[in-house]
């Protein structure tokens, strides 16, 4: 029985099959966003989505979100208005970040395989907020930044998919980047992820006009060293960077042009 628009109910066998096949496929081709998203859904059930839902139910803002189920798209967010906000605001930092990274909030895949409508929303919300995590951490969408954000998310939310990505991906990077990750960004991500308030319980849409640093302080996040600046000074450009690819998806574990 379909329980929300777009829901695809599965039986146990289909579930197992999808779990195994999407897992293997996502590992082989992490650029296939649909596979990654599917594997993410398969691994977050039944325990992790449920745990996140519980975390949201335990918090007044989390409950408000579950009640209103707001979506983040370029229609629900007025990007031009965000561009007009003072540069220290969250909204302006976010849109600057979107512009700089050349991404849009409309690229999130809808959740399909999670049965409970609340749990489906929790995972949907997590996907749609991903760019806010990048913005609040000031980390770029390049593979290195992506790994750090994944680790940050994993420490903060415990979604298994993000943890898997964060530990499997660094080894595909050049040594010097690995070193930077292990010395600076992963420790930062683990420490801040654990320390910060549960980021799913942030109503980002209502914080857009707030001073970003003030919000970071409130959430318990400190900014890491500027990764872009570091990459530039070290002039470390990995050979495997994929250029000029339109980013098609939600949680790409691949390099993006900039």
């Amino acid at each position, binding site marked *: 029985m379909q329980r929300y628009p777009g829901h695809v109910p599965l039986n146990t066998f289909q579930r197992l099959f999808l779990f195994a096949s999407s897992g293997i496929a996502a590992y082989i081709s992490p650029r296939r966003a649909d596979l990654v998203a599917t594997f993410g859904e398969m691994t977050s059930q039944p*325990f992790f989505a449920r745990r996140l*839902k*519980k*975390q949201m*139910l*335990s*918090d*007044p803002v989390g*409950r408000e979100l579950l*009640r209103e189920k707001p979506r983040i798209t370029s229609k629900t967010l007025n990007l031009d208005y965000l561009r007009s906000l003072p540069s220290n605001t969250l909204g302006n930092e976010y849109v600057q970040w979107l512009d700089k990274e050349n991404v849009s909030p409309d690229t999130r895949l809808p959740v399909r395989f999670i049965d409970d*409508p*609340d749990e489906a929303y929790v995972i949907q919300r997590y996907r749609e907020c991903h760019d806010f995590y990048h913005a609040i951490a000031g980390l770029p969408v390049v593979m290195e930044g992506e790994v750090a954000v994944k680790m940050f998310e994993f420490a903060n939310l415990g979604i298994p998919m993000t943890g898997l990505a964060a530990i499997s991906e660094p080894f595909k990077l050049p040594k010097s980047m690995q070193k930077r990750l292990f010395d600076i960004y992963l420790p930062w991500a683990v420490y801040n992820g654990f320390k910060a308030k549960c980021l799913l319980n942030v109503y980002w849409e209502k914080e857009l006009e707030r001073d970003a640093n003030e919000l970071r302080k409130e959430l318990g996040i400190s900014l890491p060293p500027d990764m872009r600046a570091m990459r530039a000074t070290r002039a470390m450009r990995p050979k495997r960077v994929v250029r000029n690819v339109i980013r098609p998806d939600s949680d790409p574990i691949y390099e993006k042009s900039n």
Partner: protein
Amino acid sequence: MLRFRRLVHTAIKKDILVVGGGPAGLSLVTALKNSALTRHLDVAVVDGQPIVERLGNWAANNKTTEFENRVISVTPGSVSFLEKIGAWENVVHERTLAYDEMMIWDGESGARIEFDAFDSATGTVATMIENSNVQQALLNTGNTRDTVIQAQVEKIHTVNGLPTVKLNNGIEIEARLLVGADGQNSPVRQFAGITTEGWDYSRHGVVATMHLEFDDFKQTAYQRMLKTGPLAFLPLPNATATLVWSTYPERAQWLKQLEPQAFTAMVNAGVRLDMADLDYLHSLDPKNTDEIIYEVTWRLNTLDEDDTLPTRVESIVPKSVASFPLKLRQADEYISERVALVGDAAHATHPLTGQGLNMGQRDVAALVAALELAVSRGLDIGSLDALEPYPRRAYLQNQLLLGVNDSLYKLYSTDCEPIVRLRTLGVQVLNKLGFVKNKLVEMAD
């Protein structure tokens, strides 16, 4: 009364003096008076409460009043004992409900186990009955009522080798056998110097009488195992049910502060919502009725209707909300020279499986059997020789039940994921094994 007053300075002599006119004490007296072997014994029961005045005409006065909150579940074993001693026929039957199914489910995983008694001899798992209904039935059986003395026990001491009880009306009574049926803080037990083992659960049981949205066609007792303790939802006649919700003391306090409508919402939440919702609701101001109702209504509306769960509560009887601390206690001995303990004086358990009263009935049956044997052999009824068969029959069985109750309680008072998964698996397997379940039901009886 006058008769006693003349005897102020000389103690009245009784064969058996029972302290405590609760269900245990009254059934002991009734059983002794019912047995051909022990009928001749001079027996009295003292209680500080005006039980005769309050309960003597209870049947006539309580045709239509609300159900009281102290409702207990009596097993078929207890019912047949009460039948045997002639008390069951005096019960107001319209105010009892025999249920034939029991459903217990895991508050974390939702895994459930169902027991039914369709194949058993009586066709019932147990019968829900008000404490007062049991007491009044006993009082009105034989001449039990005439053995009751209303007075508070002030002091117990030994005079000429016999336990002697001093009452607050000045009367002293000495007895060849002193029975403590005087509840959890048993003065008799303290007099006998009998220590107890056990612990407090640091949980309180919140009780209430509830009106349901409609009369359920099934007669089922429900228990939801929450990490804070079990929530029991037990059926009564006429779309009514009784609640025993064991939870943290501060939460019990919080629940007691609620307005009736908010309490009603919280019970519906306790039966259906996620523990995270309950945690959140408990963080709200108990006087903020609107917010509590709003939050509960919203969450309930997100759920699919599940008619295997208890019918929703429409309202509660406002003055019926009360709470009591939960303990596990077992006296180290049930007897000592000229003293025997029965009922809550001897043991107290978590109300998880509703055994509080039934264990007391079994004690009484075992003690009466021992006394019958003693009389037929010409033994002194207060001697250890006479009393010894009683604990031999009752102690170990009670210990076992207390142990089972306690382990069940501990197993369910966690939301730790691996344990939830294990117990869920265990319950799913158990639920398929009919013969094991039947054995469990028999054991509880």
